[in-house]
Structure formats: structure tokens, C-alpha cells
């Protein structure tokens, strides 16, 4: 058995054809998770009663759940419960015609909302309290202060972590292959089934992932450079303390793992 270049090329083209599934999964989940994560982080940062405790407990527990287990579990629950629910709601679509991709979306969004909300919380801590007070002192409401003063300052703090979690999400989106969604990996394996050229298929999939990941890295690097410019000038104005920077670094390390 040798590495067949022709099979590799065929797998590579097939993987590229299905790359849009992975990219959509990653991008849409990322945007929604970022939005939900921002809401949860804000609730937890301002210590809203009851809600913040519920989210704290939920996130602590949910972070212990591996993405693969979550995806498989949700898929199973959907499979077993769908016929009865469909019967009650008078939906006549058979289960085989439903695209399981929304289970993937659900699992990815749930997982990454938790992860992103943690890093956004870290960024909140990185913005000094003085900034809130300054906002209030000129008569802004809480929301205005958040939107106009705090959030823009959080962007440069968040960027490096966001890059890591975006790449993490790209890799996590690979796990939906377990519930037979055709994304990059399963796409690359489509020709392999015929020739039993699995290695070629997996290498092709890895290459496509690598290209996408490298693109994200280059874009993020460019963005960081741009944002870093602003940050260098105004580092002392934001009044960030050494301690808070250390905390952010730690939360970034968490993301690096994810």
C-alpha cells in the first residue's frame, strides 16, 4: 500500500467542495456565541441577582462536558424524541428528511457560548472601573457607557483570545462528522470509500483545515497589529493594572486549550 497522489487530489477537491459547510458552521456559531456570551458575561459582571448565579453554575458544569459527548447526546435525544413531538405538532416530515446540521449548530453554540462568555468576563475585568465612573459622570446611562466606552476598549483585549477560540471552533466543527453531516472530513472521505484510500482522504482533510486555520491566523495577526497600534498609545489611559493583565492572559490560556 502506498500513498496515491491521484486519490489524494480527488479527496482534496471533494473536501474543498464541502468546505462551505464547515465555514458556515464555524462562522454562524461564532457570531451567535459571541452575542450570547456577551449577554451572559454582562449579566455575570454586573452580578444580576439569581440569573448570574444560574449562569455561573450552568457554565461551570457545562464546561466539563466534552463537545463530542454533547453532540452525540443531543443527536440521540433528537432521534428518540422527534417522532412523538412531530406527531403531536402534526408535522409530516419524516426524520430522514431533516438535516441533522442544526444539532451541530446547537451543540457548538452551547459549548462556545460558555467558553466565550468566560473570556469576555476576563476582558470586563481588564477595563478599569474608572471608565464606568467616567461614563456615568458625563450623564451616560449604563447601556450607553457599555456600548460607547467599555465595549470598544474590550476589543483589543479580546482579539488574541478570539483568534484562538475561532480556530478552536473550526476544529470543534469537525466533530459533527460523528452525526453524519458531510463537512470537510466526511467530504474528503467520500472518494476514499471507493478505493479504500483513507489515509489520503484524512491528509486531504487536514490540509484543507490547515489552510482555513492559517487564513484565520493571518487575518487575526493583521487585525492585532492594527489594534495594537491604538493600544500602545493609550495603554496608560485605560488604567489597566498588572494584575488584571495577568488575569486576562490566564483566560486566554484557557482558550488556547479549547
Amino acid at each position, binding site marked *: 500500500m502506498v500513498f496515491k497522489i491521484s486519490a489524494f487530489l480527488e479527496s482534496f477537491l471533494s473536501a474543498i467542495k464541502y468546505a462551505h459547510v464547515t465555514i458556515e458552521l464555524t462562522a454562524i456559531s461564532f457570531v451567535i456565541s459571541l452575542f450570547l456570551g456577551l449577554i451572559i458575561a454582562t449579566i455575570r459582571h454586573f452580578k444580576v441577582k439569581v440569573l448570574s448565579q444560574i449562569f455561573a453554575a450552568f457554565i461551570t458544569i457545562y464546561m466539563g462536558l466534552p463537545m463530542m459527548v454533547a453532540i452525540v447526546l443531543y443527536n440521540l435525544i433528537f432521534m428518540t424524541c422527534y417522532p412523538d413531538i412531530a406527531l403531536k405538532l402534526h408535522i409530516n416530515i419524516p426524520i430522514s428528511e431533516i438535516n441533522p446540521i442544526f444539532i451541530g449548530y446547537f451543540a457548538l453554540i452551547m459549548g462556545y457560548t460558555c467558553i466565550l462568555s468566560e473570556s469576555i468576563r476576563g476582558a470586563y475585568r481588564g477595563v478599569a472601573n474608572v471608565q464606568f465612573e467616567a461614563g456615568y459622570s458625563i450623564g451616560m446611562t449604563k447601556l450607553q457607557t457599555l456600548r460607547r466606552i467599555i465595549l470598544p476598549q474590550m476589543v483589543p483585549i479580546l482579539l488574541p483570545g478570539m483568534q484562538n477560540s475561532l480556530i478552536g471552533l473550526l476544529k470543534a466543527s469537525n466533530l459533527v462528522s460523528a452525526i453524519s453531516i458531510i463537512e470537510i472530513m466526511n467530504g474528503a472521505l467520500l472518494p476514499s470509500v471507493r478505493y479504500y484510500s483513507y489515509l489520503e482522504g*484524512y491528509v486531504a482533510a487536514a490540509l484543507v483545515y490547515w489552510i482555513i486555520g492559517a487564513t484565520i491566523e493571518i487575518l487575526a495577526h493583521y487585525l492585532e497589529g492594527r489594534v495594537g497600534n491604538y493600544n500602545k498609545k493609550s495603554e496608560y489611559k485605560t488604567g489597566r493594572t498588572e494584575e488584571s493583565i495577568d488575569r486576562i492572559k490566564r483566560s486566554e490560556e484557557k482558550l488556547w486549550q479549547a
Partner: protein
Amino acid sequence: MGSYFDFERFLFVFPKVISCIGVNLQIVAVSMFFGTILAVFVALARLKPIPVLREIISVYISFMRGTPLLVQMMIAYYGIPLLLSDVFLNVFGINLNRLDSVIFVEIAIVLNEGAFLGEIFRGAISAIPAVQKEAAYSIGMTGAQSFFRIVLPQSFKLIIPAYGIDLVGVFQNTSLVFTLGIVDLLGKAKTLGAATGHTLEGYISATIIYIALSLILKGFFLTVERKVYSYGV
């Protein structure tokens, strides 16, 4: 869910699923042990200005970061026997195709951890003040001695928080191995489901075990962190 989930079935399945936790823990232990050793050398290679090696290592880290672990596992599973089976068969008399697939999973995770932990180690090693190395040189230690006796032990202290997070991540990543047919927590839940026709109880058992053990590991590392840092770094 009512009729789908039966508590008695759950009690019957839970001990059977948890009995397979050894497979997961073994993968974690083996891959963390070798991964840490590999990571130290990866970090060293990134810090030292060795021309070709430096580029190779950065490509290696980029590959490990940019591709999903599942794909890496599959490449190890199909690729290693293809590349090395002749060598191993002739030299060591080992038929790689008959080898347990756990070993390929462990190789994949070790290589993956080498990259991730390597970056963590690199940060910690470069955070050790240069004075420490100079002090070691001043009492006549060689370069390797000063690294392994002075710098590395101090960097271990710095990496504890990141190392804990990483270890929990590896434990969670072991949930992927059932795709290679290894009977771990999830694999056992799947086989039990196929045998009895009730999969949900097994999967919920696996979920509970994963969450509980992740929390325990996190708590353990937090305590270690507090103990270590209470004496000052």
C-alpha cells in the same frame, strides 16, 4: 422524555459504563507523561536559534493547532502502519497492523500535546529571569545542567494553572477515541445501546462521568495551585 429514560435501566447501565473509565484515564496518563517530555524539547527548540529545526517546529505547531484532533488521530491510525510497518516488522518483529488502536490514539495525542504544552512551556521558560541562569553558570554548571536543574524546575511552578486546564482538555478529548472502535466510556455506552436498544441511559451515564471527573480534576489543580502559590513563586 418520560418513557425514553428509565431510572432503573440507568442504575443498571451506570456501573458498566464507569468500569471502562480506566481506558480514558490510561490514555490521559500515558499521553500527558510523554507529551510533557516532548513539550520540554519543543519549547527548547523554539527558544534556541537553531536554523532548520526552528522552522520545522513552527510548521509542526501550526499543523497541530490548525487541524482537528480527530483528523490527526485518523492520520496516525492509517498513516503510521503505512509508513513504518515494514521497518517494524523486519527490525523489531512487531506487526503494526495488529497493534491495539489505543496506541495510535496515544501517539496522536502525545504529538498534539507536544505542540500545545510546548507553547505553554515556552512562555514559562522565557518568564524565568536570566539572572537564574547566570547564577547557575557562575557556580560552574554547564548549559544543560543549568537548564534541567535550575530553569526547568522553576518553570514547572509557573505552568501549573495552564497545565491543569490542558490536562482537563486532554481528558475531554479522549471522548473522540470511540470513533476508532475503542471501548471507552462513550464506546461502552454505544455498545450497550446496541445490545439493549436503549442508548440514552448509557450516554447520560457517560455525560455525568465526564462532567464529574472534569470538575474533580479542575478542583484538584486549583488546590495544587493555591498550595504552591501560597508559598510564593
